[in-house]
């Protein structure tokens, strides 16, 4: 079974480095720095999971990408994790209004690698424990 692909969209290079180091232990990882690149990458080769920061070039870029993915039939079923430092209120808001930002999980930065891997495992399976080629 091929390793599931995780796309990480975040403009924080150091954070992306950390995340990639964790995810690469079991998944294939691709990284982009903004929403436009994220959408283009998904269109070219849909990943198994998308992890989005919210504030990149624009204030709510991550949310816009999530809505765009869910409104497109071809990408609507790709699981989405929002991983950002914006506001704790978002978590509550997503609980009461699932349609607000269509994501499967909202995490705040900083993120524990264990928690992240557990959630990614829930969404796309455990992956394979071998290094990325």
């Amino acid at each position, binding site marked *: 079974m091929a390793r599931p692909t995780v796309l990480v969209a975040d*403009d*924080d*290079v*150091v*954070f992306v*480095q*950390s*995340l990639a*180091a*964790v995810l690469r*232990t079991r998944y294939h990882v691709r990284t982009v720095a903004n929403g436009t690149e994220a959408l283009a990458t998904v269109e070219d080769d849909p990943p198994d999971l998308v992890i989005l920061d919210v504030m990149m*070039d*624009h204030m709510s870029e991550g949310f816009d990408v999530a809505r765009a993915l869910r409104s497109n039939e071809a990408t609507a079923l790709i699981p989405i994790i929002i991983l950002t*430092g*914006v506001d704790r209120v978002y978590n509550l808001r997503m609980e009461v209004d699932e349609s607000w930002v269509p994501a499967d999980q909202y995490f*705040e*930065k*900083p*993120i*524990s*690698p*264990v928690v992240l891997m557990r959630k990614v495992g829930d969404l796309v399976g455990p992956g394979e424990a071998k290094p990325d080629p």
Partner: protein
Amino acid sequence: MTEPTMTRLQTQVAAGSGTRVRSGSGKNQFSYIFAWELHERLLWFCKLRWLAAAGLALVSVLGPFFSMPLTRPSLAVIAALVAIYNLVFVYVLRVRLGPEKDYAALKGLAILQMVTDLAALLFTVHFTGGCASPVLPFVVFHMAIGTIMIEGRIMYALAFAVSTAAASLFALELTGILAQVPTVSGGQSTVGSCVLSTAMLVVLVFGVVYLTDSVTSRFKARNIELHQTTTELRHALDEQEQLERRKSHYMRISAHQLRSPLGTIKTSIQVLIDGYLDPGSPDGHRLLEGTAARVDSLLDIVNDLLELAKMREGRARAPWAREVSVNQILADIFDTVDPFAREANVELVPDFINEGAAVLDWAVPPDLVYAFENLIHNAIKYSKPEGGTVTVALGIDRTHAMVVIADDGIGIPSDLQDDVFLEFVRAPNAKHARAEGTGLGLSIVREAAQMHGGKVSLESAEGLGTTVTVVLPLHHIPPEIIDR
């Protein structure tokens, strides 16, 4: 630097130096208050008029008991007329003219009511004994009420009209052109008593209008004053609330800006602790370097926040402030930034060498250095990858020094040009340029300019470059320093 440019900038500086423009249409508010009051008073007046009509009807019925047989039908007709036109006035006031309607229309209606009432009163005076009529004092009473509602000059005109009409009425009665109606006591008026009555009526009517007008004018002035004070207080309260909201927003944004690198640092450390990367491996080393850079950026943000806070407090009006030469400051900065410019392949053009000395009476040197250094650094930092030119020019006139820093770099998108002086606002093309920045530099520059009594403005075109202009008054000394 051209004269028109300096003049335009001076005008901008002067315009920004204090005149507060009051918003809202105060005049309309006062009109509304007056209209509301007038509407209430006119309705109250209509109630009084019902009483007057009823009184007249009663007198016409009871007339024979007071030896006034001739007046009975005439008073009944007047009572009926008063009741009819009062009905019309009530209808107009309640249905057609509310307080939210035109104040001028209500004023017109008030004058019309006064004229019809005075006409009805003069007819009543005629049918109840002319110049000896017991109804005559009601004319004076009516003028007093009218002056409360209608402005003085119109009431003086009405006083003149009613005096003339009454005098003419009495003259016509005395000459026999109009039949004299007997008084309550049954007697006839004499020339002497009529002249005396007319004179007293004129004095009383004008006197009452004068006194009532002076009291109501003062009352109205106080009313306006009170309303203005209330409006100003409300305005100040709104400003205070806005300030509190801005403060809160600023704190939230600042906290987020601090939390963001902290989140990254914490995650990176956790990744290393959990053994996902070996710190000794090339990837681990790269992550450690990146993490250290984030710590540096965090420190930069904290330092800039402190700098901004100090400037906002006016550095307690800087006891170490002194006379400062802008030329010297710019020359020193050029020495500092020159290596940085060379590295970025940017040519620095000092267009202030031959300019006269721009000496500020009161300045805090480190703050001015920070401001100009920041602007020149930005101009170099956001130059195009292939390099470019940064020109720093100085202009002076009798009152102001103007420093213009122009580059031909990446520019600022038009939709962000108004916001770049706000805290933590960075244009996307600046982020893409991979140039480090806290997003606080321009806020500090603006604060530094304002602290020195000046202002900063910016013109930019994306892809073509940016020109930042700082205008500083030569002789500005903060009021707190003068008062000390």
